[in-house]
């Protein structure tokens, strides 16, 4: 999960900014600015807002898991509490007509997340590994349970509503429309992503990696592993608070689900799917997961089963996540042999995808037969409507599954060989 080669490269690199460093940021900013003009519908902007909030949250989670080696089962608490605090701030601004513009609200959310993280981190960061995971779970459950007890702050079961439009207008913008909120969130997403990236380049961010890999050795070098963890933890709390504030601005309500351990589990899933070994991994994870969630949940009732299976497969077979899979191709690209992989990939992946779709179709059929109300035999799958109790769809799904799997297995050895050849420098025997 470590990116050793990349690390040495950063250490020896000259301090001046190169084009390769700046280019990804410029492209992402242009991309974010241009997106609403391409997808203008309200639902698309809603999805993009959610995506950006998830990106900030997932990156802040990865400051713990990926960069600091701390597995947290209660990270949603810092986002949720930061969000709740912003909700109260919104209401205070509304009643007292304070001259605060909305765009600075995330700073307050972040500071509150930071405050909570410093309190919890003061005792939870003593050890990494299982102790940390357990304490984070305990604190997570504790605060989630408090949300129904302390109704003055958490609003009980109804949650805490607010109204973002009562803030002082920001250069004439009152954030009545979704698109204005989009650009506000986009600004904060870019800013906090940049800050988190810069944090990972500071000495304390670098030491977090060292403490993750070998705390004893870091201690021998004179660093306190505990303090290094504490700084990472506090910083992660700060950015989680920012994500909470963005959530508060976007949805104008926070409920107890924002604090729940389910939410903490989801962010672990997102970060791990994207890949915790690379800085950009959680960004990929957040984008892919939000898309999966919004597309699959419309298509299928058992989409969470697919997500769970995908997660487990990632943990078992691709511990580097999506980012790890992408970065696996860097050596081949450096040798200029990436092109030789295209044909073998198509030969193996197309049948594999057919097999997966066939399997999914089988599951959907089974689910429909078991759970649809009696007499309701019609179901729609892959844009075709048919009778789920007839034999033909079952045969088609079975043939697709078995045939696709068989073909994929047949061509897998040639893919392995092509992979090996692509990763061998030119002029050397493969």
């Amino acid at each position, binding site marked *: *999960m470590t990116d050793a080669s990349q690390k040495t490269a950063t250490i020896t690199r000259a301090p001046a900014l190169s084009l390769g460093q700046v280019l990804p940021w410029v492209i992402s900013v242009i991309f974010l600015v241009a997106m609403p003009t391409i997808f203008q519908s309200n639902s698309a902007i809603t999805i993009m807002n959610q995506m950006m909030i998830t990106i900030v949250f997932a990156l802040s989670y990865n400051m713990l898991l990926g960069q600091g080696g701390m597995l947290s089962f209660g990270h949603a608490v810092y986002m949720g509490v930061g969000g709740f605090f912003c909700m109260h701030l919104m209401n205070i601004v509304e009643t007292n007509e304070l001259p605060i513009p909305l765009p600075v609200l995330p700073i307050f959310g972040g500071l509150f997340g930071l405050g909570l993280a410093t309190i919890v981190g003061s005792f939870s960061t003593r050890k990494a*590994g299982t102790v940390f*995971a*357990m304490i984070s779970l*305990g604190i997570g459950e504790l605060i989630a349970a408090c949300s129904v007890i302390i*109704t003055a702050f958490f609003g009980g079961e109804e949650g805490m509503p607010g109204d973002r439009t009562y803030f002082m207008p920001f250069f004439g913008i009152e954030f009545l429309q979704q698109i204005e909120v989009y650009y506000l969130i986009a600004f904060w997403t870019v800013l906090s992503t940049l800050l988190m990236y810069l944090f990972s380049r500071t000495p304390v961010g670098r030491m977090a990696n060292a403490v993750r890999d070998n705390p004893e050795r870091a201690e021998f070098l004179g660093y306190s592993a505990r303090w290094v963890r504490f700084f990472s933890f506090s910083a992660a709390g700060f950015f989680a608070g920012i994500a909470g504030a963005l959530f508060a601005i976007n949805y104008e309500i926070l409920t107890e689900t924002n604090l729940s351990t389910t939410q903490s589990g989801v962010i672990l899933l997102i970060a791990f799917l994207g890949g915790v070994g690379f800085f950009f991994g959680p960004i990929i994870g957040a984008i892919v997961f939000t898309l999966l969630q919004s597309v699959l949940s419309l298509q299928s009732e*058992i989409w969470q089963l697919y997500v769970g299976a995908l997660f*487990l497969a990632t943990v078992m077979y691709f511990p580097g996540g999506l980012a790890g899979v992408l970065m696996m191709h860097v050596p081949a690209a450096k040798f200029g042999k990436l092109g030789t992989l295209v044909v073998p990939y198509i030969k193996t992946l197309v049948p594999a995808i057919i097999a997966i779709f066939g399997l999914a179709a089988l*599951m959907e059929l089974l*689910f429909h037969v078991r759970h649809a109300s009696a007499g309701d035999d019609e179901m729609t799958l892959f844009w075709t409507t048919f009778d789920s109790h007839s034999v033909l769809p079952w045969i088609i799904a079975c043939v697709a599954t078995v045939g696709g799997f068989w073909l994929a297995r047949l061509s897998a050895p040639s893919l392995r060989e092509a992979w090996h050849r692509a990763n061998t420098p030119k002029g050397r025997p493969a």
Partner: protein
Amino acid sequence: MDLVIINLIDGLFYGLLLFMLSSGLTLIFSMMGVLNFAHASFYMLGAYFAYQISMYLGFWMGLLIAPLLVGVVGALVERYGLRRVHQYGHVPELIFTFGLALLIEEVIKFFWGNNLMAYQEPEILKFALFSIGNNAVPAYKVFMIFTSVAIFIGLLYILTRTRIGMIIQAALSYPRTVEALGHNVPLIFMGVFGVGTALAGVAGVLAGPVLGTFPGMAFVLGSIVFVTIVIGGLGSLWGALVASLLLGWLTTFAASSSFPFASILESFGMQRPESLSDSYLRDLWTLTLPQIGPILPYILMVLILVFRPHGLFGKRDV
């Protein structure tokens, strides 16, 4: 007085249920060094398997077969899942079991749906064994208490008095030496994992009719089981027993008492505010012990982890 005895019995029931889960979990931890996040999911699998079997063969066959099935599933998970992830380290193992817990819940929803199953205790045990005051004690609860005590004694006997128990104990502390002596240590690990999950399965079979068989039952109990073994000390069987009973009684007594927190505030000389809705401390004034009962275990665990990281009976840090 009657209420105290009833609470004692209820707490014992809940505590022993917790113990059946935590004993397997703590065994697995001392063996592999990994906390099995999916342990409560095996408990849920036990309840669902038993429900399905009891529809055809009756409750008693369910009690017999379902734990075996769960044990087999657990052993397979260890062999083809955990052993593979083991090479990446402890954190990925924890993440793996977390993912497994998610997946098992979804698979349960896939096959049995979201509703509460009509899984019930057998007709023979559907009567009140005795009553204290006005409260009847169902025979099924007493049966369950005796079953779990029997399991604990059996487990203790096997682990400390038999040859296989000796080998397991040796394999826990010195796996390499035991391997050099010609024992198949990976097989032992697989077996212990299977037995641990089967114990969880037994707990599920027994608790399903009382606590309800629904897809959220693992989630309800899952984190409490963790709390139990952390409080008791990871890897300690006695610690698991003491902590289970402690938590069982703690939560039952908290749930049935009506102690108001306002009396504490008044003893500090604070005045009850005229209109509660304006006060920021209004929740403290209306708070009662049953309300904070569910979070008492977590408070206890955080305190234990901060002040005594190896738990009540544990010999090593978490």
